[in-house]
């Protein structure tokens, strides 16, 4: 599944992996684009699998003419060895019937590579929030027990809100229905989280409630939130962080308008 693009396979042991879930508004993927583009990460390999819809394009993070014509595929891994950071970018939807297989492949790759922790950037439908979730911050987190052991203090200090469990049938008082986790529009986030709990993988999910539309502000909110924890970009002043928008973020809402339309 992971194929290195370099002469020798990269080492991921003790790295932090940041990856997106293909979810509403593509916020996780946009946030990962910001990370790769700003930190100028270099590609180290591909996730070559039949679980993702194929797509290719030229370098989405091109800065000059020389690196513009580099081919990029639907799932690639980038690293910054000095930050002990690895980033997986997923650019295409998961093939519908292969969602379970994809999660299994991901988890087995994560375990084999020896990542110290995995952070999944995700999103959920804003219109399906319940009353508690309508208030305050739209950001939530989930964390597996094995990662909670090491990160509990950091999370307490950050004051983050854990994703609430909801009753399966609101209003129906039945002693048997346990409140359960639901991430509508979150793609594989929920199932990946549950599988990681079961397999003792140190994993966290960071998500934002949003709707489809111009999701660039949501991506910035999510990536700044992540930065509060991981400190990928550190500037001592209180100014907002400067994330670099990649060159591929153009014409998100279609081509130029025909002049004779008016």
């Amino acid at each position, binding site marked *: 599944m992971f194929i290195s*693009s370099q002469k020798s396979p990269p080492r991921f042991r003790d790295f932090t992996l940041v990856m997106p879930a293909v979810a509403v508004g593509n916020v996780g993927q946009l946030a990962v684009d910001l990370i790769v583009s700003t930190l100028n990460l270099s590609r180290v390999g591909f996730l070559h699998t039949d679980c993702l819809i194929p797509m290719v*394009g030229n370098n989405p993070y091109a800065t000059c003419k020389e690196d513009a014509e580099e*081919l990029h*595929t639907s799932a690639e891994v980038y690293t910054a060895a000095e930050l002990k950071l690895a980033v997986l970018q997923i650019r295409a939807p998961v093939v519908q019937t292969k969602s379970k297989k994809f999660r299994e492949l991901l988890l087995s790759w994560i375990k084999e590579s020896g990542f110290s922790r995995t952070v999944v950037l995700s999103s959920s439908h804003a219109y399906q929030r319940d009353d508690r979730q309508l208030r305050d911050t739209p950001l939530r987190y989930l964390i597996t027990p094995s990662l909670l052991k090491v990160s509990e203090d950091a999370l307490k200090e950050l004051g983050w809100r854990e994703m609430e469990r909801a009753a399966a049938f609101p209003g129906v008082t039945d002693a048997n229905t346990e409140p359960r986790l639901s991430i509508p529009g979150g*793609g594989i986030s929920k199932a990946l989280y549950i599988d990681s709990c079961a397999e003792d993988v140190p994993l966290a999910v960071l998500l934002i409630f949003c709707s489809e539309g111009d999701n660039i502000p949501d991506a910035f909110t999510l990536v700044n939130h992540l930065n509060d924890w991981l400190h990928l970009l550190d500037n001592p002043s209180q100014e907002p962080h400067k994330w670099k928008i990649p060159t*591929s973020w153009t014409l*998100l809402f279609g081509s130029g308008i025909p002049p004779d339309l008016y």
Partner: protein
Amino acid sequence: MATFFGEVLSVYSRAVEEDEEELEENEEDAQIRKELEEKRDVHLHWSPEVSESLKSGNKLQCSDFILAVGHNAARFLSVYVLTSSNWDAVGHVSVWNERSRGVTGQSSEESACVFYRRKENPSVLICQLTCYVAEDQQFQWTEKVFDCLQHRELNVTVLSDSSMADYKTADYLCSSSAPFLRSLHTSAFSGQPVCPSLEQPNIVTGLPAAVLSHCQVHRIAAVVYQCYSDVIGPDSVSMETYKPALTRHGKSIQLDPSPSTDILRKFVRPTDIQSNLYI
């Protein structure tokens, strides 16, 4: 999502379907699902001669593999390349999905995916594909075909049809600029593409993307020439746009630079009028 009138609409997300609960399946459902999956399998059928040479794990010697995806690309090859009698049909692929018409088990003449090999130079392989290969079949098609080819010094060229409606550009393109070519190539490709590179934020999807991904990952020299056209059906102008893409193949392909009108007429039928509403 609530509208102004108070009714609640279910929203379709461009990113993701509702996450499905994985329900317990009974044996009968699992059996039906398995049969459906098997029906969607991609099957490669080679001629007896080729099957013989592929026995015991051998691969086909191949220096140039040219794949045409779409009606204009396929007919370009039929008109400009395959009209000479120098080509043998050596195999076909049968693939079934929700858009397939007709029965399964088609013969190679009716098949929408046929392989041809040059008689004097059997290391040149051409494939014409006019059927739809679904998203869950594209990877499988690519793996099965490339498993039969030796990768050393292999050069892959893909000709692919696309609609101008899919081409994004800041300056509005009027019809007079269509049809035109854009290219994408793998890191291992050392040649010079014959047209400009595909600009951001445009991408290539479908079978050409699956083939290019495979070649990029396995370090095979490959290039995709995508033809953006504003005509829906097959047309001779779009077909001619592909000519420069094969000029570097020169002798190995023997392109006919100006095919006769008879040949063109044979392959370019006017689009059948399916409805008189829009003539």
